[in-house]
């Protein structure tokens, strides 16, 4: 069930009404059933995989808490290995086989390795990471084990963040299922306004940008440098608005029922360094890797070379988390390298308007180059696209005409492209205003029911009139 479908709108209204209509003791049961229904709307049988992960980590959490000494670590390892095994079988098995196949061929063998035909369960990487977060927190002693199986299941399955996050921590979410959430206009309007902003980002910006991106990348071999450049810039817009849009809808849907999920995006394209960028992009995943990979490797509390090694390892794993393809691994390592470079040359930056602008532009440029790896199907394709943009981008009137015509192939191309850039510019201007006047937006607009009502009404118009009304999937569902 896609967030941007009429089915979800009906589901959301029914579940929210039921949530407030039911007595407190029945709410978690209803939410759990609703979450199962929501998940089963994709591929019903895959709920069994989710159930297996829930069962393993639920019991391991209790065993870890009740055990002493080395056994605690054993249970933690069992939990991590079994949860990661599910991830490996469904997500990485074929990648592992194809890599082994290639290496074998290079060594002169032809092993004919068996490949799997399993479809990746939707949102597998998200709920396995949320599950792992719980077990690790229990092991670290920062979270008491959840002994109520239903509540624990709901922690993993809570429908707003089940398929694409935010990847919650038990300390933030579990206790909320025990709280009495009374209906409040503030929560309702705040939640709805966040959802409206999410729908705007997804349906007005991301899906519109996707039309051009899909055409360019599908026919990248014949595309000009300028077409690839425009396509890559639009992909950076698309992936941000697609995923941030999903996150806003998820956070808003939870907020309407009184739940507070963690912020997942904080205007990442306004970052002035790669370090800042990663503090603003997919925050729930970045902090997950920081807490459970980077810090256990002793982060920056080691020698400089080891610190840089830690960064590279963390980002390589983060890249692999995104997908079973070398393009994602390279994208991860590339971001790690950028952080290393930033550590080396960052001290040369000076203060002042020109330097700040330059930092902003350079950061955006490097982020954009990284996304070419993210969007490409193969590593050679990514390098070829970067090479063509760098060497054969022509800025003549004819090149622009040709590039614009690619959008739909007919006279509607110019309107589509102009509208896409205009609406995207409008969105970033709004974000810039929020960046510039954070306190005003946080204290006045975000707290005012009246302003939220205005935002809902206006964003609803924008979605209905300028949105792409065909329900299309979210990019991060594939992870």
């Amino acid at each position, binding site marked *: 069930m896609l967030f941007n479908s009429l089915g979800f709108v009906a589901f959301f209204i029914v579940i929210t009404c039921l949530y407030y209509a039911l007595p407190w003791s029945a709410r978690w049961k209803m939410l759990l059933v609703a979450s199962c229904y929501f998940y089963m709307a994709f591929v019903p049988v895959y709920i069994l995989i989710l159930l297996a992960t829930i069962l393993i980590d639920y019991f391991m959490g209790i065993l870890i808490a009740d055990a002493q000494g080395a056994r605690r670590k054993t249970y933690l390892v069992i939990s991590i290995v079994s949860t990661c095994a599910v991830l490996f079988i469904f997500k990485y098995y074929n990648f592992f086989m194809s890599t082994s196949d290639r290496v074998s061929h290079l060594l002169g063998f032809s092993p004919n390795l068996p490949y799997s035909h399993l479809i990746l369960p939707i949102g597998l990487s998200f709920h396995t990471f949320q599950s792992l977060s719980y077990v690790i927190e229990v092991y670290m002693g920062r979270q008491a084990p959840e002994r109520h199986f239903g509540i624990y299941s709901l922690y993993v399955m809570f429908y707003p963040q089940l398929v694409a996050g935010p990847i919650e921590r038990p300390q933030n979410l579990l206790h909320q299922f025990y709280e009495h959430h009374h209906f409040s*206009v503030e929560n*309702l*309007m705040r939640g*709805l306004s966040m959802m409206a902003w999410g729908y705007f980002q997804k349906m007005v910006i991301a899906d519109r940008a996707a039309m051009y991106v899909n055409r360019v990348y599908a026919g990248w071999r014949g595309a000009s440098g300028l077409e690839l450049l425009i396509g890559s810039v639009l992909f950076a817009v698309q992936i941000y608005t697609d995923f941030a849009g999903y996150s806003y809808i998820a956070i808003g849907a939870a907020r309407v029922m009184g739940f507070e999920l963690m912020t997942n995006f904080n205007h990442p394209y306004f970052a002035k360094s790669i370090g800042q960028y990663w503090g603003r992009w997919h925050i729930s995943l970045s902090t997950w890797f920081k807490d459970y990979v980077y810090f256990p490797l002793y982060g920056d509390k080691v020698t400089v070379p080891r610190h840089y090694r830690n960064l590279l390892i963390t980002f390589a794993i983060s890249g692999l988390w995104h997908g079973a393809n070398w393009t994602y691994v390279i994208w991860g390592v590339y971001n790690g390298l950028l952080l290393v470079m930033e550590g080396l040359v960052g001290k040369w930056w000076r203060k002042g308007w020109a330097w700040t602008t330059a930092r902003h532009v350079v950061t955006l440029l490097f982020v954009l180059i990284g996304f070419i790896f993210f969007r490409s199907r193969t590593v050679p394709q990514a390098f070829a696209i970067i090479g063509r943009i760098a060497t054969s981008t022509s800025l003549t009137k004819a090149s622009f005409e040709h590039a614009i015509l690619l959008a739909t192939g*007919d*006279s*509607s191309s*110019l*309107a*589509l492209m*102009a*509208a896409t850039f*205009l*609406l995207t510019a409008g969105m970033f201007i709004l974000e810039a205003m929020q960046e510039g006047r954070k306190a005003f937006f946080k204290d006045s607009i975000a707290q005012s*029911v009246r302003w939220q*009502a205005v935002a*809902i*009404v206006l964003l*609803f*118009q924008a979605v*209905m*009139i*300028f*949105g792409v*009304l065909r329900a299309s999937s979210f990019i991060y569902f594939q992870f």
Partner: protein
Amino acid sequence: MTTLLKTVLSALLLLWLLVWIKYRFEHHLAPTTSGIQGELHGPKNDILLVGSSHTRQGYDTALLEKSTGRRAFIVAYDGVDLASMVPLVRILLADPSRRPQLLVVEANGGNFGRAPEIEEPRLFFDAPPEMKRALIIDYLRTHHGRSAYADTWTLIANRGSELILTWPLVHSAIDGLSYNGSYLNKNVPGIAPEIFPQLRVPVGGGEPDRDQVAALQQIVSDAATDGVRMIFADPPMPAPVEVQPQMVALQQKFKDFAAADGIRYIDGARGFPTTDPAMFTDSNHLSTAGRELYTSRFAEAIKPELP
């Protein structure tokens, strides 16, 4: 709850108002050198050609005017089929003082075999409210179920809205690139010879669609009622497309219906070098060279039709 109710009602009321304004007035933002509004607001035309992009890219109006000595105008929208042409022709012939001497309706075998559809939002955008209404009624008559109503809503409220946002830029560009509905100073190259043999267009089973047949007869009847002389014309397509069995069957059926109604049918492919890749830019559109050649031949062919 009052806040929520007020918000929902405000959102719906404002949406209704905006959509009504869009529906009622958007055609005033249409370009003035092409499309419906170009035809309705320019000088009276002697030769009026109506069709899809197949027609737009099939004729050079400047050349046609030079060859015939008459004013010519193309009203073409991508993918327009006979069903959409019914309200289009009606609106173009509505004013008796502006009726052309010759109406040329596109005879496109590919469109003849498929169910009615509105492919290009510009058609709906450019249409005055009465034509919009006719298009919607026709769409709901030929499409059924919940999706038909959802499509209609999308058509009214959503499709073409980019044009409202960007019309000063887009329409000045279209105005600068077109002359009386055909391309101005635009060089469309021929197709690569190695791709040429693979060219095909998607056509159904070779049987004409029932609604398209009814639309064809309606256009003939409307033109006769309005006293306008009309012909059907099919600009040439590449040889590999012209010989597709379903295409041959559909074109033959089209010719049969035209003959039964006593309407002349100009087969553009006849005597045209359809095997020359330089004449075509894709599976059903002519290149600049092809357009110029076909327009010259077409001008000679219609001279006897002009008073």
